[in-house]
């Protein structure tokens, strides 16, 4: 039987080299050996995607590479999923994600979504050009822990200033993360967002930080949690 570490490494490497066929082969071998599918996802495929995030941040990889790596990873996840039934997968938290009203840029937001999912978050993606009220509705519907808002234009970025208080009024304990090219730390603070990252590569750490911080700050009331 092939060694589990070797198979995990193969799955990791094939994701990084965006070789969908290679990912399928390595994952099939992993399945055949009946290793724990959750480890396959976390320590094989998702680990590969984390490496991809780093390569992207270091400008070794660009958007095309990242998109293909994500597809390769998903091909592997599909093969592992049937064996995961019944297994308890603990979600790190629920995130509502979207690009702000008036703004059709969604490539950055899609990368953020991928990294959050890789990091174990459940993501409800509202797409691009999302009306302000939709964020609030979706937060209430899914009882989300976090909201991620992307804006790529100076004009639409100002919409964040409007939507953040709306979201906070709808669910006071929710943490809001903002990002997108024109957004900076200063702007995020000015808009009273709870978190910000410049690159999707750091989003998981930031999301976890904000969740811990808002959890502490939120009033411990049963109707809010």
């Amino acid at each position: 039987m092939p060694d589990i570490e070797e198979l995990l490494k193969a799955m990791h490497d094939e994701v990084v080299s965006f070789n969908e066929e290679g990912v399928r082969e390595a994952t099939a071998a992993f399945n055949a050996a009946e290793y724990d599918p959750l480890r396959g996802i976390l320590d094989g495929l998702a680990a590969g995607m984390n490496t991809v995030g780093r390569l992207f941040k270091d400008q070794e990889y660009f958007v095309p590479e990242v998109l293909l790596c994500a597809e390769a990873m998903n091909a592997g996840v599909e093969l592992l999923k049937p064996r995961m039934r019944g297994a308890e997968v603990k979600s790190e938290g629920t995130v509502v994600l979207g690009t702000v009203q008036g703004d059709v840029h969604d490539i950055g937001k899609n990368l953020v979504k991928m990294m959050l999912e890789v990091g174990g978050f459940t993501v409800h993606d509202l797409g691009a050009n999302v009306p302000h009220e939709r964020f609030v509705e979706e937060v209430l519907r899914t009882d989300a822990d976090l909201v991620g808002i992307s804006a790529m234009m100076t004009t639409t970025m100002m919409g964040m200033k409007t939507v953040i208080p709306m979201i906070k009024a709808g669910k006071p304990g929710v943490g809001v993360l903002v990002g997108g090219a024109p957004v900076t730390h200063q702007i995020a603070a000015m808009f009273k967002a709870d978190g910000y990252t410049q690159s999707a590569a750091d989003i998981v750490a930031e999301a976890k930080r904000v969740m811990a911080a808002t959890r502490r700050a939120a009033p411990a009331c049963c109707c809010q949690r």
Partner: protein
Amino acid sequence: MRPKERFLRRLSGQDVDMTPVGCTTAYGAVALMRACGCERPLADTDPAAMAGLALAGHTVAGFEWVKAMGWDITAVSQALGCELGAPQIDLQYFIAGHPFEQRSIDELDCPDDLLSRGRFPAYREQFRILKEKVGDELAIFGMSEGPFTCAANLMGTSNMMRATLKDPKTVEKALEVTTAALARVIDFAFDCGADYYCMADPSSGSDLLSPRSWQKFVFPAMKRLAEAAKGPLVLHICGNTDKIIPMMCDAGVAGISIEEKADLKTAIEVAHAKGVRVFGNVSAASTLFMGTPQECRAEATAALAAGVDFLAPGCGLAPNSPLPNILELRKARDAYFKAQ
């Protein structure tokens, strides 16, 4: 020296008395619209209003050259079949649909009536008005999206990105058509009297595409356009362009336009060694839009001190940029050369 003479001399590398100041991307700022009474949506579609706003760049903002052909980068994509979203006073026309996201790119061709489609007839008339009013005084430029951005608009940007690695033939086919279309649009602008033509190719920037892919796909298209053009071209790409600036310059353009995210000093060194001029690079997204007039002055002065050839915003003016900030470009230039 007259502004037009100064501009053209500088663009061809001859001596001038001072650095020209203006904008080589869109300057559809609401403050300028209000000042001249030419607001969107008319400023996007009506030749007189389009010309009115173009001229406000000179009369109100103090820019020393003016822009024809609208305030967005969607016109060629529209003429090739992209659906557009409705503009608002502070929101440009934008791409709302990608006709070749599902359909095969083999069905894409450059229609014979390209230049009678969309806004091109209005642009022709706008050029005529501008030539008549300021043609002797000021340089006039035409502008649109570049071939890669146009192809990405038609196919969907994510699709296009994937195809650069997985299906390069499709990318080449799409670029073949968009490059042919752009060649005709550039001809059109020079026939209408443009002094130079600016292409903005943001979707090919290094925030998305690797320099390797830029060299493979975008460089040949740019080279082809530069060789065919009847007049000087300027290439604008947003974001950090450090790694592709040498290639941008080698494509045969007269100038490049870059943002504050690129290293201006190095860009100027590289460009000048290749006989290319540099436009830029006062931050449009932060400083001009959200900064103070003092910060705008400081950034403009720094660009002049670095030796920029044309003092300009790094990218299109954000629609809600305050007028006092915009005015600092001209003031900074005037003060800088008075002090010298």
